[in-house]
């Protein structure tokens, strides 16, 4: 079998990979002049054909997302805005941080490709508030790129202008949600918006807007250089290409690993992450961040890492943040931890979420402390069910997923902790 290409990690670990000189020596920007001279539609067609889906969590097809943005002749003079989403806040996910640290120029290049396809001339890279150290690194990369005529007016003589800046949030998980992000950029509380209208039509400042995860963008130069078919050669029918998987939890080598979609989970766990520690048994896996329903050990060991398989198992590929739980982990305490996270991060806009997340956290903490009663488990489940589908963003479903899947998977452990 061919070795999978390193589409996203080729420059990881190369000394100085964040500098323009090294990045260029390693091929970044080599094809940019040609790509920026292509028709916008030619770029979009390649991206559609590649089957690329968003790497932020929802897995929405990138080409289709762009297709909702009105073409220049139907914009009535309004600009289009592009936001590269590096709010990376989903527990278990740290790949965007590693990608931006090692290869900021590839993210910039991918951003330019997307901007060209969207005929967009102004881009912001939205970083979560805690990524100040990344902002400095990216600002330096943008400065170098600007000097080299890779960002700014008439890039590489192509006639295409594009300005890129960074923007830093200030601590809010919900700003990773695209409309929460836009509220934040406009200088307000990051409360997700009622949709429709979707950002593609009415986004930042009332203009058509695309919000795209930075890993998604980093795939674009490779797709344009090698072609959609080469990209589709990796992955599965509905999950093309490779992905960055963040592996955390009690494994021997936690880290970020690039694998073709469709790779068996077992290979990620054992081949990449070195397996569990000696004598430990796999308990369960959160496959795509803390908001994705648990897989049991048996499900996980039989699973492949793609949208099709994980959705058939009732979960999601999500952000690719794989949290591994072994038999040293107390699932009751783990759920108490996660419910606290969601209670802390609920924006408070929708009553079922604002109240429900707080209740769930208090009850889960009580149960973990051994002070719960059996009826608490009923209330906990009831709260999670009342939350699903009743909020105006996906946060409600995200907060409910661990509660319902932990209760279902570890019912005996929960029952053993409560008084009758």
């Amino acid at each position, binding site marked *: 079998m061919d070795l999978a290409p390193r589409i996203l*990690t080729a420059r990881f*670990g190369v000394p100085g990979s964040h500098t323009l000189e090294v990045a260029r020596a390693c091929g970044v920007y080599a094809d940019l002049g040609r790509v920026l001279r292509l028709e916008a539609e030619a770029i979009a067609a390649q991206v559609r054909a590649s089957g690329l889906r968003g790497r932020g969590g929802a897995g929405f097809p990138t080409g289709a997302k762009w297709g909702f943005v009105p073409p220049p002749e139907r914009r009535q003079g309004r600009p289009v805005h592009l936001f590269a989403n590096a709010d*990376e*806040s*989903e*527990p*278990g*996910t*740290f790949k*965007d*941080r*590693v990608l931006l*640290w*090692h290869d900021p120029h590839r993210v910039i290049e991918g951003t330019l490709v997307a901007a060209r396809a969207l005929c967009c001339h*102004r881009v912001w890279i939205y970083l*979560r*508030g*805690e*990524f*100040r*150290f990344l902002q400095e690194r990216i600002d330096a990369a943008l400065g170098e790129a600007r000097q080299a005529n890779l960002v700014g007016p008439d890039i590489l003589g192509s006639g295409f202008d594009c300005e890129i*800046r960074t*923007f830093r*949030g*200030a*601590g*809010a*998980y919900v700003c990773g949600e695209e409309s929460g992000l836009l509220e*934040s*950029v*406009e*200088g*307000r*509380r*990051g409360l997700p918006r009622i949709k429709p209208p979707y950002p593609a039509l009415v986004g*930042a*400042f009332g203009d058509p807007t695309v919000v795209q995860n930075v890993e998604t963008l980093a795939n674009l130069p490779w797709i344009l250089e090698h072609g959609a078919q080469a990209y589709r050669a990796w992955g599965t029918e509905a999950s093309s290409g490779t992905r960055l998987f*963040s*592996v*955390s*939890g*009690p494994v*021997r*080598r*936690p*880290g*970020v*690993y690039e694998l073709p979609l469709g790779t068996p989970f077992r290979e990620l766990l054992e081949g*990449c992450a*070195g397996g569990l520690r000696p004598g430990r048994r796999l308990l369960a896996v959160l496959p795509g961040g*803390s908001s994705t329903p648990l897989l049991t050990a048996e499900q996980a060991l039989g699973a492949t890492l793609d949208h099709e398989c994980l959705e058939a198992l009732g979960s999601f590929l999500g952000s690719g*943040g794989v*949290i591994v*739980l072994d038999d040293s982990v107390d699932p009751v305490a*783990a759920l108490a*931890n*996660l419910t606290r*996270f969601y209670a*802390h991060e609920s*924006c408070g806009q929708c009553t079922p979420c604002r109240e429900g997340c707080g209740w769930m956290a208090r009850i889960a903490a009580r149960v973990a402390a051994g002070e719960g009663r059996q009826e608490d488990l009923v209330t906990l489940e009831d709260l999670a069910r009342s939350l699903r589908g009743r909020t105006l963003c996906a946060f409600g479903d995200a907060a409910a997923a661990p509660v319902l899947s932990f209760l279902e998977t570890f019912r005996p452990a929960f029952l053993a902790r409560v008084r009758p």
Partner: protein
Amino acid sequence: MNDPWAPDLAPLAREILAGALVPGAATLPLLWLVQDRRGWISDEALAWVAGSTGRSLAQVEAVVSFYSMFRRAPAGRWVIEVCRTLSCELAGAPRLLAHLEDRLGVRAGETTPDGAFTLLAVECLASCGSGPVLHVNGIPFERVTPERADALLDALREDRLPERPEADLWTWPPAS
């Protein structure tokens, strides 16, 4: 913006406002500017940001209170944020936090009486593969054992932020 409260901030503020598509979009950058330079966001700062962006005081206060990183009170010289979300908890965050509380003599959320340290327990910092993680004034330190935490505190007490070993942070499968 021309408020005499902040003559030193005015040139940077002008630059931020010039780069904002609408004045309101300068709100977060201006709040960061104030917090970075002054350490916290006072009533005067709030009024200055409101005046600069054409927002009401209440609107700006609402923004400040929404985002967990903005501070309405002074903090210690070194702000230590310890991640406590699941992957870090499994990697030993509770032990690290308890150790820091013990060494500093404060609970999470408090500042030491000498004003040197503020200790905070925070949610996921996106370093899940190298926990437990903490940030010191925004700089990440990963795989922080109690011993490493002691060495870190010693350095900070001497007003010195230790060099972060490159291999500590950014090897992507970590060196093994």
